[in-house]
């Protein structure tokens, strides 16, 4: 028996099919979940994929956060269900207050698509155990509302509790994938909740899982193998 990982589709979700592919490539079963359902179909973990749910109208993630499915996800996440929010999914998680802070328009005001260098800061979350803290990876980044902000107290708390999961690597030129791409405070690319089951990040691990496709790298596969191992070992 392998793990069942739910992949949510909101209206306007774009990366649901790609995420399902990544889940399968890691060896788990991908279970499509629909925003109108309340039922999680007994999945062992949930991914909120990227895209422009509800067109990102109002604020990215703001409308999806009120879907029937999210009510269940919010309850279960608080009870320990592993949840990964990628890009728009991360925005849904902050709008749901499962993760602190908020996402704003990039400081340069443009959509940006590039192969982004990151440092994995925490390997203690459900989704990062296959990496080692300090490891540098490169996965696609593509968004216009990717600037992470929170008040100083929250930022201090995240750092003190080791809850910054990923940082943009600040070395070198911005053009080659280094550097903070959007003005996110303290170079934060992704964070986790206290328990480590809920993780959100702006870059897209599901687009770096097959050699020769996209960036050609497979640095993102670790997210999906991490959760699979955790679930199967339980």
């Amino acid at each position, binding site marked *: 028996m392998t793990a069942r990982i739910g992949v949510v589709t909101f*209206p*306007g979700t*774009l*990366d649901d*099919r*790609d995420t399902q*592919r*990544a889940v399968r490539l890691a060896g788990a079963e991908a279970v499509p979940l629909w925003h109108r359902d309340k039922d999680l179909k007994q999945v062992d973990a949930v991914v909120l994929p990227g*895209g*422009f749910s*509800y*067109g*990102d*109208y109002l604020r990215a993630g703001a409308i999806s956060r009120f879907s029937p499915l999210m009510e269940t996800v919010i309850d279960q996440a608080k009870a320990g269900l592993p949840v990964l929010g990628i890009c728009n999914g991360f925005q849904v998680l902050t709008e749901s207050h499962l993760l602190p802070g908020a996402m704003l328009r990039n400081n340069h005001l*443009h*959509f*940006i*698509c*590039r192969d982004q260098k990151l440092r994995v800061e925490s390997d203690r979350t459900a989704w990062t155990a296959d990496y080692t803290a300090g490891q540098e990876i490169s996965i*696609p980044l*593509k968004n*216009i509302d990717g600037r992470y902000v929170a008040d100083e107290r929250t930022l201090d708390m995240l750092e003190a509790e080791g809850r910054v999961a990923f940082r943009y690597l600040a070395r070198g030129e911005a*053009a080659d994938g280094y550097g903070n791409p959007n003005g996110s405070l303290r170079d934060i690319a992704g964070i986790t909740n206290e328990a480590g089951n809920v993780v959100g990040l702006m870059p*897209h691990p*599901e*687009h770096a*899982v*097959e050699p*020769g*496709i*996209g*960036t050609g790298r497979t640095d993102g596969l670790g997210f999906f193998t991490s959760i699979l191992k955790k679930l199967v070992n339980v």
Partner: protein
Amino acid sequence: MLHSSGERPPYPRNLDTVKHATETPDVEQPWSELGLKQDEYERIREILGRRPTGAELAMYSVMWSEHCSYKSSKVHLKQFGEKAPENDAMLVGIGENAGVVDVGQGYAVTFKVESHNHPSYIEPYQGAATGVGGIVRDILAMGARPVAVMDPLRFGAADHPDTKRVLPGVVAGIGGYGNCLGLPNIGGEVVFDDCYQGNPLVNALCVGVMKHEDIHLAKASGTGNKVILYGARTGGDGIGGVSVLASETFESTGPAKRPAVQVGDPFQEKLLIECTLEIFKENLVAGIQDLGGAGLSCATSELASAGSGGMRVELDTVPLRDATLSPEEILMSESQERMCAIVEPDKVDRFLEICEKWDVIATVIGEVTEGDRLEIFWHGEQIVDVPPRSVAHEGPTYHRPYERPSWQDALQADDANKLPRPASGAELKEQVLKLVASPNQASKSWITDQYDRFVQGNTVLAQPEDSGMIRIDADTNLGVAVATDGNGRYAKLDPYAGAQLALAEAYRNVATTGAKPLAVSDCLNFGSPEDPAVMWQFAEATRGLADACQTLGTPVTGGNVSLYNQTGETAIHPTPVVAVLGVIDDVTRRTPVAFKEEGQLLYLLGDTKEEFGGSAWSQVIHGHLGGLPPAVDLERERLLAEILISASRDGMIDAAHDLSDGGLIQAVVESCLRGGTGARLVVPDGLDAFTFLFSESAGRAVVAVPRSEELRFTDMCGARGLPVTRIGVVDGAESDSNAVVDVQGEFVLSLAELRTAHEETIPALLV
């Protein structure tokens, strides 16, 4: 003015029914304001045997506009069919929403390029956004899942203040719409030239994939079948936009008369895509048509015209955003994100259910009838009763006069080969730096980084590669590649050759990445057809393109014509933009542009002659346009393509880049920058350094060959008769800070210097 916001149409507000029209033959009608000519109006009266109602007049006027009827261009476009090469891969040809090509393994691919030039000048963001939206619906209507977009763009001078307004808006609009739909942008063009000042060209291409059995056509058949309108509500968007935007120059359209602009809703379109694909999957439609220019007028008349029966529509059932719209306005509205489907009665419930699932509004607005009339009713009263073919497919045809302009000879006599050339290595070096930093040759990543190229997880190659490539089957690695090209400078010098060079370049770009070219789509951007000189350019370009397609065996599957791209008397350069689609059996064998491995050998394929007419060098260094464009040799292009494809399939080359504007040095610099490596070049015997570096002779490419493959590769070229010249070696890595481009005996440029020159130009101009 009908379309200025807030005002009402200039004809009576009380309903102009068919009955009323019959009874009042002498009512004055605003045919001229609607863009119709006197004889066209007379013909409508003749067809109907009475005066048209207001609604009928609205329909004929939009459908007989240049944009919808191709009245000036169709006598020339005919050649694409007449000269179409035998090609077993063609599944659906010209005439449908887009052509469809068999790519093997049961897959079919559809692609098409379209223009949204004028709207993008008025409102760059929305104009460009709705351009993407429109072409995506065309592809969707064929039954395909859209899988990628491309955007060939042309603007005025890079440093002109209006370019700062137009370009960022256009790019944001294309990105804003395409990114939100989840369509990877895999290529395009950005060209700057004074001639596009006031007439930017915003062309958009979409590629879609389906199984053979999923191909759908735009026709309404089966008496009793329901007509369902679904998607966005209908509002007052772009009413009259079709006839006015596409058939008049801007000179006459001051701000006060500005037509309404359509606003795109990419979120709605994304829902429309998913909803439509689910409907296709359950086999629920008998015919389908997107709503684009001319809105419901177009969709209903085309569906009815192509089908076997007639159609009856209850126009008052159309869901409205603005309850005050008149029936004429509803028929002409260009509200975006709408589709029209023909559905068998017992499938209607399921159809509506799927729409409800995706939050898409769907309404039965009519049905297919016996007979052959298109009848439209408004609250029970008949306002349209026409033969649909007369609206959709039998519009006027013009044989516009055309004549080679008097200035053409002088232009061609102004030979670029006589321009002063660099006299020393130092001067060559300076000109190389200038060239790679010039706006047309500079890196476009400031623009293309605003486009998502990874979404859908199937992108194999995207900009700045020679062609975009998408995997279409993850199990077999089957893929398709597409490139778009056009060179208005070449076409200005010789429109016949210019169109062929555009095709040759796109064909070469596809082959350079390892894919076999299969089919063509084109967007023909020209000035006013009422100018015999422009019409000559158009006639020459279409003839050139049709002839070349025949020789290369790549049929034109569809495309678009955009005329009236001119300011006052001055037309843009004739700009045929050509897209070539190719297929590759195994995407893991694709050939990228980047020189990656130090020590690999660089070979130049093809012949280099002294050809500088229309070249980037003549433009950048001398601000010159004159002479003749490079010679076209289509047999050579075909041979070059075969070699590049074989070499990729058999693993003989690791990188390849086609040579086009900017010549060899531009290509080598791009490949070095992409791979982070340097190169040492030797000027081959029989060539001077200047010609070697800057000539734009067609039919050439540069390849990087691993030493272990050298013999096999050169033997293959020799055996097949393709000139192959060793020109240097990949040497030095940027990461070790020792990468240079060294043209031995002439100059050395560090990669860092080249990178700065190449990459800083566009941001500096636009930020």
